[in-house]
């Protein structure tokens, strides 16, 4: 997994590419989110356009990231899900947990 970070106003946009799976990106995702939370970024937007695969460990880290953000009074939202990642969020019912957006403009506007 690779990541690129940029800021749009007070929203930190983290673009991920590659695979988020056990032994290949799952721990990295956790560290990335924790680092940004520790730097006191309260609005995190994960751009998943480049993520082509996510196994149950990857999904688990996404859930853990969501919980970590919530516990620190921060928000974590998702955008640009590929069809496969969208399918995974649908079958796991996690689509009801995450705020998911199709484009950056809507996602940025949704942060309170």
């Amino acid at each position, binding site marked *: 997994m690779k990541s690129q970070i940029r800021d749009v106003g007070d929203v930190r946009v983290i673009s991920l590419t590659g695979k988020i799976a*056990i032994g290949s990106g799952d721990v990295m995702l956790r560290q990335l989110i924790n680092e940004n939370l520790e730097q006191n970024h309260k609005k995190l937007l994960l751009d998943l356009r480049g993520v082509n695969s996510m196994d149950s460990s990857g999904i688990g880290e996404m*859930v853990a990231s969501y*919980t970590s953000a919530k516990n620190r009074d921060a928000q974590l939202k998702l955008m640009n899900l590929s069809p496969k990642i969208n*399918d995974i969020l649908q079958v796991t019912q996690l689509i*009801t947990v995450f705020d998911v957006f199709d484009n950056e403009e809507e996602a940025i506007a949704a942060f309170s």
Partner: protein
Amino acid sequence: MPAGLLNHQARLSLESRFENIEVAERVLLEILRGSQTDADQQYWLLTALREAVANAVRHGSRGDFKNRVRLGVNLCETKLTIFVRDQGPGFDSEAIPDPTEQQNLLRPSGRGIFYMRRFMDAVDFTQAPGGGTLVTMSRNLERGPDKETRNEKSDS
């Protein structure tokens, strides 16, 4: 077996390392090469395999690289069967809570077996002769892409 019928088999004994999940994936892809499965269906089959091997490494061998994960893949006509055996103490698969229930949605773990059951027709966990857990997963490849997933998506 009559001549001309599709019949491929592979057997591997892997060191219990997460890196070897990709070896298992390559073996399954090679077996599927001669079948009529499309990329979509292959993706979900690989997902189920990945979860079974990851469970075998994580829970079955508990980080001991000396332990082995044994993989078998059979493709006979349209029936795909995958066997994954570890050297762990075993577990009660029925005791794993449903990760889609509201109270479990925010649990960071417990979705691997759900994935396997979702993307295969049948998944069985048995105590292997001589110890360890044997996971047997099968799927009829004529079923096509994961229709349940697609239906849910279109319903949402």
